[in-house]
């Protein structure tokens, strides 16, 4: 992965985590929070390795 792309993704992840935290504090856990978390996970997958893992990987 290009360094620049990785940087964009990491920064986006940080911002999303902050957003989710704010939403949780004001509205609690909702489907909107779940969507933010889902997007966070999509990003995290790209940062661990570029290929998606198999079913039986150690990360839960």
């Amino acid at each position, binding site marked *: 992965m290009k360094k*620049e*792309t990785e*940087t*964009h*993704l990491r*920064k*986006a992840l940080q*911002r*999303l985590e902050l*957003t989710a935290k704010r939403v*949780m504090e004001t509205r*609690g*856990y909702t*489907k909107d*929070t*779940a*969507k*933010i*978390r*889902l*997007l966070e*996970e*999509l*990003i*995290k*997958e*790209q940062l661990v390795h570029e*290929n*998606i*893992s*198999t*079913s*039986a*990987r*150690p*990360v*839960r």
Partner: protein
Amino acid sequence: MKILVLQLARFGDIFLSWPTLRALRRKFPEAEIHFLVRKKFSQAAQGLDIVDQIKVLDTADLLAPIILGQEFEQASLQRLTEWLAPIRGENYSAIYNLSFSPLSSYLTQILADESTIIRGYTRTEDGYLAIPDDTSAYFYAQVGVNKSNRYHLGEVFAAVCEVELQAEDWCAPAQWTGAQAIAEFRERHELGSQPYIAVHVASSQAAKSYPAFKWRAALVRIEREWDGRILLVGAANERTLGDEILSGSGLTRTKSLVGDTSFTELFTLIGGAQLLIGCDSAPVHVAALTATPCVNISFSSVNFWETGPMSRGSRVVYADEPETMPSDRVAGEVISCLGGRASGFPAVRRVDGGPVAYAIEGLPDDDFAWRLIQAIYSGGEFPVVHDDLTVAGMVQLREAVLMALEQIPHIEAGKSRVQASRLLDQVDIAIQSIYRIVPHLRPLIDWFQTERLRIGPLPLPEIVRRTNKTFCDLLAVLNLYLGANERPAEIGV
């Protein structure tokens, strides 16, 4: 009835899900079955005529605004919302999540409504991981490369979906693997009527791959001792590996088709082969669907019990690392497999009829952890402990459990709650230490921790009651080994 099956892992996992989808169709002949896969691997869902719709998660499209680097998370969220909306509108009666990932757990929660039956990972109402069914709890606790599970993933997927697999569920589309397709393939590649074997030269990760020079040495010996043709297969980005294997090899009956076969042609190629040789990779799972025996080269980065070849007549040759697998070993196994005889080497054979897919021959097998798993989950006999470390670990674990059981009742009481919580934190640290130091106890501790995780958001008295019961259940197992210890009364019973 409308069913959604999620499989967001890779090619091989999608192929391993095919039998479960067939079994679901058999169980629910009138249901509408949708299958959600990633766009990158969606080719593996072709040929699934028993599925009504293939839905696709396009990660690249969803993340594109962010990758542009202009703080466009909201744009990505908007794309995600627009992608989710029609899928939520399907109002699924059941969602089977075969992906076992954090991402799929959030996706399952978003797509489900109150009446949806969910099996597989999802989320609690306060956002924590929820594991509603026992099979997925087993997966969470016991499945993975450094774990001791021996159930094959194909069977685990079926168990999550509460279906029984039959032999005919492992099949490929007839138009890809029938006599006509194979005849046309042979004509296209000028194979005549010669038998051939297929060799998948790569794997998705280096730790699972066999080096080119070792492949070359193995194939030289195979050509010397067997009269048929050898076809190398792989993806387009593996083409140079095929060339490297052939370069300067002197091989005359080996042809590289690496990067030159379409997805459906791969099925035809493997279907017509006498044998497939490969590491842990998608073609091994294609071979399970085409009933082609395999010699599977497996390393410590893979748990072959879970993801090994499922076709009859297959064998697994195992070494800790690719560098320590001699090419003669691979060649010897292939030649003996083609001749229908044992190689004389230690091997792992595909077997039918038992709870696991393989039998080990001539290799040391410390199966204590596996027998402990069977005892915990399937009512098998608890294995005898022969080593002092495990006994000492059990003694320590029981002390930690007894301390926890003394403290748990104080969690509901006002003044002593803080002290009790601190002591319970110490119990958790102690249990983690035992986990690290005593490998034989890991399946037991993993089961215990998973059951605690499954308690979920409940009123405090109910959390206390269930936590107490989980500790009591662990104590019961430890008492089986260490001798009777008075079981504390379960709270609220």
